[in-house]
């Protein structure tokens, strides 16, 4: 009885739903809400993060640290939260800036890797393989030393982090892009050639619109990974979440609370990000790379 009822109501509701969720691919992309809303939210958040987050020079607690005999003090732990958030925002900013470099640079690396000329593609591949299999920490030190060695060049720590993280994750992104470009159907390339499209039109109107949605989840995963690598930039002087923990520990001689709250704050930021990426992955029909 109830099953029949359900079926009846479903049948009654189905046409309405279809009308509501009508998919109109012919609309221009900038008039589609499902594209514009995420883009706008992203742009606003990005602008706020990059524009308004300033790295504090030092993290000073307002509260007296408890005495040395206590292993763990909840009061002090909660007191550290605002300071930790300041540091975390700087870390997020660094990760986003670095990833912005990676997304752009990675595409060109992927193009270089696909180049027909062997003396373009081989060195690109060698560089990608080399950067991929060496630690970011050492690379950050390398960029720092290189920056010091070149006179007249004066980069801020966060710019250095941007370069280091960007170059490292560009190699990862390039692999994702390469898989995405390869997944574009061969017939599409042939059709573009048959229609006599110029290379620029072929890439911007045919290949990239089909390749990039496939790789978005992979890029999202790399963004989360980059965010997880960003705190180590405290070695080059970025005042992020680990710098906060380090400085508070050095000033108050208490190490448990700062590091634990750094870890907790980190989880609070990275778990939703990973979840969002998984939702994206579920939404986009996506071939495993």
């Amino acid at each position, binding site marked *: 009885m109830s099953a029949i009822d359900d079926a009846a109501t479903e049948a009654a509701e189905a046409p309405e739903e279809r009308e509501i969720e009508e998919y109109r691919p012919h609309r221009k992309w900038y008039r589609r809400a499902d594209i514009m809303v995420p883009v706008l939210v992203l742009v606003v958040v990005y602008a706020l993060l990059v524009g308004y987050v300033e790295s504090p020079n030092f993290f000073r607690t307002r509260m007296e640290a408890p005495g040395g005999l206590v*292993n*763990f003090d909840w009061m002090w732990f909660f007191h550290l939260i605002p300071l930790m958030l300041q540091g975390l925002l700087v870390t997020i900013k660094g990760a986003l800036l670095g990833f912005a470099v990676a997304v752009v640079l990675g595409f060109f690396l992927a193009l270089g890797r696909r180049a027909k000329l*062997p003396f373009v593609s*081989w*060195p690109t*591949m*060698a*560089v990608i*393989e*080399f950067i991929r*299999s*060496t*630690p*970011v*920490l*050492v*690379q950050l*030190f*390398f960029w*720092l*030393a*290189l920056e*010091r*060695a*070149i006179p007249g060049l004066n980069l801020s720590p966060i710019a250095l982090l941007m370069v280091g993280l960007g170059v490292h994750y560009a190699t990862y992104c390039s692999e994702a892009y390469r898989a995405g470009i390869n997944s574009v159907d061969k017939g599409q390339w042939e059709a573009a050639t048959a229609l006599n499209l110029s290379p620029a039109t072929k890439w911007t109107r045919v290949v990239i619109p089909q390749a990039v949605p496939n790789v978005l989840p992979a890029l999202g995963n790399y963004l989360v990974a980059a*965010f*997880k*690598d*960003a*705190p*180590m930039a405290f*070695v080059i002087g970025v005042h992020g*979440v*680990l710098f906060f*923990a380090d400085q508070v*520990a050095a000033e108050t001689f208490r*190490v*448990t609370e700062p*590091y*634990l709250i*750094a*870890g907790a704050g*980190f*989880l609070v930021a*990275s*778990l939703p990000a*990973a979840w969002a990426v998984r939702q994206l992955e579920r939404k986009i029909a996506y071939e495993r790379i």
Partner: protein
Amino acid sequence: MSMNVPSDTGAPPEIEHPRTKLVLVLGLLSIPIPLLGPVAWWMGNQELRQRDDDDRGQLVLGRTIGMVMSILLLVVLGLLVTLAAVGQGWLLTGGQYRTLIKASLVTIQILIYSFALGIVLSLVVGVARLSDHRWIRGAALAFVEFARGISSIILIFIMAVAIPILLDVPQASKILLAAIALGINMGGYGAEIIRGAILSVPKGQVEASLSLNLTPTQRLRHVILPQAMTVILPPMGNLTIEILKGTALVSLVGVADIMQSANNIRQEQLFAQEGTKAVLFLNVLVLYFILAQIVNVLFKLWERRVEKSYEGGRTLTPDELPAHIRHATPGVTG
């Protein structure tokens, strides 16, 4: 179709490929003479592109060695030339190299510890993720989310600095604590790999082993894992390289690994007023690259072994058959 045309459905005749050996020899020779690396790489690729029927193991091995050597050659040449142009020295002194290589043993030690812990954790958690009990599944999921969500560097700091004080345990060995942190991190990613691989084994295999009345442990050990191995190994190799990269972080809690001794050398250079030299870290990068490629080659060899074990061997002659089969087989006189 006329009957005179010979049908091409039969197996093609076995052709000896002289270049297979050549590629392998060139690849092996490129270890002492890196200049041969690109040749082996190129030839191996040409051969691999042309053929896909007979065994490619030797070709792949020769090509891979050639590839590694030519990458090394290119990177070292390119970056050293760049740095020389910037006006830096070319190489470190012998003593500094000795320090770095001694410290790389510590790095390898940490890698082995965390790899061992990571493999155990990922097996246990990966199997627990597919458990029938809700609570076990939930706990495994929580572990995976924690291990993948937290940054390995923060985990290392918590493990090596905060935990000993919080739990009042004496700070036994920082190497061990840092390796535990890296192992937890690896366990989280490895558990997902193993879970995916177990799910990729055809369902009929599980049903067959159930009908043979194997215990769950036997089923996992003898039926599922051996078949999942081909799916597990390639991502596991990448994961191991990620962990190798992660070992550089333990220098920040004061373990004397490669990175720490590089920093010591840097301090010496600063003390001697030589300034910070980028070439020092370039050498460290090359050292890490070599270690990563060693891990890579080891996993490739392992993969090859696993793949080989799935290729059937030739038919055994009656003399080679085990005794109880030989006697039971009709028509074979033992």
